[in-house]
């Protein structure tokens, strides 16, 4: 059963449309919405993600597809057939592109296409019951293949960005520190050199000075 549907622009994570009474009867809807938002943020940061993906979170699962720089995301029960969920998203995508296609890039304000929610609402109802003839037919249809779609955990997905950040931060720290190390090493080298040869040089100097003074006086 579809719990929540969101459509957002991938480039900047701007929400474009949202199913209307999303979050109804959902005790933690705010928490899940928050997760969706950070998911979008991740996507907009450009980590290369598969264009179709399922992400598990608690008792639910997010399915999303990214097409034409727009991300269509829905949250379902885990028991809800994956195939139907993606069919649902495909339907949304086709209609959304048909209606709003040319304006997606220029949308400036959040929820610019909120009018689309009526379509979301309507489509959602069609997919509500998995046992209707129509949905069973879809399930049996082998044309649409969903097996290869990857399923990951939300912590993992949200964590990916974090880890990458950590790694790059570490490496940059490494670079700067190694540079500092190189500088210091050079400095030490020089000091060692000085320490080694300075007495000899001084002695030689004194000897030459004595020679020179002796020649001059005589």
């Amino acid at each position, binding site marked *: 059963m579809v719990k929540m549907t969101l459509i957002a622009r991938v480039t900047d994570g701007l*929400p474009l449309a*949202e199913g209307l009474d999303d979050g109804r009867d959902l005790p933690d809807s705010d928490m899940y919405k928050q997760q969706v938002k950070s998911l979008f943020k991740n996507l907009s940061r450009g980590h290369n993600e598969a264009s179709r993906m399922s992400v598990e979170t608690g008792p639910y699962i997010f399915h999303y597809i990214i097409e034409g720089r727009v991300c269509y995301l829905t949250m379902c029960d885990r028991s809800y057939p994956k195939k139907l969920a993606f069919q649902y998203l495909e339907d949304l995508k086709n209609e959304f592109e048909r209606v709003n296609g040319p304006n997606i890039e220029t949308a*400036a*304000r*959040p*929820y610019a296409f*909120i*009018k689309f929610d009526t379509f979301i609402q309507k489509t959602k109802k069609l997919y509500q019951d998995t046992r209707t003839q129509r949905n069973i037919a879809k399930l049996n249809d082998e044309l649409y293949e969903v097996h290869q779609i990857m399923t990951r955990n939300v912590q993992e997905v949200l964590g990916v960005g974090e880890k990458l950040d950590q790694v790059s931060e570490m490496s940059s720290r490494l670079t700067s520190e190694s540079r500092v190390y190189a500088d210091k090493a050079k400095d030490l080298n020089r000091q060692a050199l000085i320490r080694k040869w300075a007495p000899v040089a001084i002695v030689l100097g004194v000897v030459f000075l004595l020679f020179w003074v002796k020649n001059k006086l005589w």
Partner: protein
Amino acid sequence: MNTENQGYPNFPARPPPSSSSPFASAPPPGVPPQSGGPESVGFRPHTRPFTPSGPPMAPPVGVMRPFQSPLVSQIPGQGIRPPPPPPSSNSFPSTAYGPPGGGSFQRFPTPPPPSGPPQTQTLAGHFSPPRQPMGPPPQSLTSGVPGGYASPPGTGFQQSMPPVNPSYPGVGGPQPSFPPSSYPPQTGGLDPASFPRPLDGDVEPNTFAEMYPMNCHSRYLRLTTSAIPSSQSLASRWHLPLGAVVCPLAEAPEGEEVTLIDFGSSGIIRCRRCRTYVNPYVTFTDSGRKWRCNICSMLNDVPGEYFSHLDATGRRMDLDQRPELTKGSVEIIAPTEYMVRPPMPPIYFFLIDVSFSAAKSGMLEVAAQTIKSCLDNLPGYPRTQIGFITYDSTLHFYNMKSSLSQPQMMVVSDLDDIFVPLPDDLLVNLSESRNVVEAFLDSLPLMFQNNVNVESAFGPALKAAYMVMNQLGGKLLIFQNSLPSLGAGRLKLRGDDPRVYGTEKEYTLRVAEDNFYKQMAADCTKFQIGINVYAFSDKYTDIASLGTLAKYTGGQVYYYPGFQSSIHGDKLRHELARDLTRETAWESVMRIRCGKGIRFSSYHGNFMLRSTDLIALPAVDCDKAYAMQLTLEETLLTTPTVYFQVALLYTASCGERRIRVHTAVAPVVTDLGEMYRQADTGSIVSVYTRLAIEKTLSGKLDDARNVIQQKIVKALREYRNLHSVQHRLGSRLIYPESLKFLPLYGLAICKSTPLQGGPADASLDERCAAGFTMMALPVKKLLKLLYPSLFRVDEWLLKPSADVDDLKDVLRRLPLGAESLDSRGLYIYDDGFRLVLWFGRMLSPDIAKNLLGADFAAELSRVTVQEQENGMSKKLMRLIKKVRENDPSYHPMCFLVRQGEQPREGFLFLRHLTEDQMGGSTSYVDWILQIHRQVQQNA
């Protein structure tokens, strides 16, 4: 019944010029009041008769009755019946206009018999005209007339009016040294005709708009005084309210709409500390890299995208492309941070009582038709959602799924444990389920036309509606026909028990009886549900309780007592249509910010306060205004100006989230006189009205009225003290020019429906309904209700020229007193809620015939104005239409009244003549005298 009213000595017949010339033309300037004698006598209460023998006053008397022919027809403007044959030779019998026995509408003075007392005596109370156009204040001159007119006990106070020696020469002469604007002159003579009257309607002070052209327009924000006191001590000497009236969504005329701007990627520019929005009064420094907040003087960084170079004078180069830096009112598109959820669609949910009386009165039919006709105009297509629940002793839900052809009705009879039979499809998308909704509305009146159920399970129905709506919020329209009698929230017939009036418990009648209502209202506000209540019963419905729902959800109460579709149908049709189709702001919150050192301490109107200063408004529109009062926190304001910023965050019907920002500035002053000069009567009256109505919810009506009077007295006394030092004022009443209408409006507040009289003057429901309405009215509308317009139309109708353009001419307002009425005329009274056509008794039958057709001689209560096939009638209808179009927020219903038709005339018309005395209320003259006396007492 020989009550005479000394307060109305002035009839249209004016004193001939000769009588006034001694005063008018050559007032001895600056003559101080003549010592003690007349003065002290004059203002000692209960100094009754004196013999006004002063020659100068004599002439005016002459103009009065004694010289006139006793024929009634020769005395214009007195709505008096033909003399009853026997009783006396008096051709001007006093006539009781009140209901039999009540006598409450008795108003016209009994004139002296033609052979009556000597002239000099009759003139008691008649006074020389004012010396200066502006300023009439009163010196009182009433006295008992030694002509044998015993005043009945109980009309006492005018008798106690201080008489003033008519020969007192210097009173009121303009004192040359007084600049007229600040020291309005006073007159010793008292000519009610010259009292200030707001006949031009509400005049907004505009000096300020000129001084600060970047302020928002006064239709959005009006301060009670545009000069803020600099210290607490100064503020405490200003006895008038210090605050503002805000109407955030006021309708702007064509071409002056609020500009919509989008900050785009830079985000909305706001002060980091006080969250003020960027506005025309912020200053840019550091060559454009920083800006200083005008409210808290914090220095903020300018984001890169918003940066612009400054020119030599320190102004931004891109000023002309930045409306938010040049205009006081802008609308900003809100980014995601301002949304807790996607913008909601407009939602209209109807909760309709279908018990016996609903069908019988025709309410169901009118409501269903109106809703149906408005379906096309509901804002927010194609997202608009709609739903219905009807109820009598059971609840009826309607499944409106778009795939059905007919709505399915589901009946729930368990009132104790409410459940919603369907999760979806009770609230449906209008554009999809259009056919089902229309089918439902067509069949609704038929379904219940034979319903004999008289119960009303209002509380459970409200809960059910709440359960359906609480996901999204929206507007809930309740149509209630009888007292809620079943389930939670059932109400008792606590009714109009006159015995409770005057006791300490009086106020409990005017507040909600059951906590259920307040609780429901609080819950609804939380889930963005705004409630409008339409009440139709002819019996007691406890509007006080029902109205609570509207009060705390930012809604409105519409009350149609004794609804009959043939009479009230039009009114309901227009007002419901207006309610459904006007532009509405959803799920909104409003906050008003002001500079350091002051803060808004109290808010008055229909809304719920979410925190100390955040006003929650589930649904708000252009017909709602909110008042608030200021307090000074710091003892001394050091800044030269104070800024105010109103911000309303809302969802427009089209699905955009917007912030409407109004910014205004006012100077800080150290001089009380300046505060008086910059005072705005309209705004002050608006605040007072709300305070008085709130007072009636915790105290007696009498107390509320006294409070108003006391406040006005205090203010005038302070003003007097301010000026009595430099100038010898004698015993004159002085007032600032800017507040010249304040006393009259104060009187009008006391006479307004929520506050007037006692138990017999207005039914409890009417009182409460009017109270809820007045709490939300914008300033202009409120002033019109308080001092309605009255104009004469018969002459205009008779004029052959049928130009449309001369309408302005005919809409000349007359003072609202019986003297303005001529029994040969036809008058229209318009308070914005009702139109009354008053047919004088001597009105030419031709006019009546032309206007009313064959019914012209019938009882007018059964006649309605319809367009007849003649020019005159068409002209009148055009005028009425024009009057109605002037203000579409309410639909004034048209009443016809013939002079002398009792008791209708009294209830519909006479009691609303603000300046007249009626029942226990005060006339304008007496009111001024009362105030004057009190000002004097502790001066």
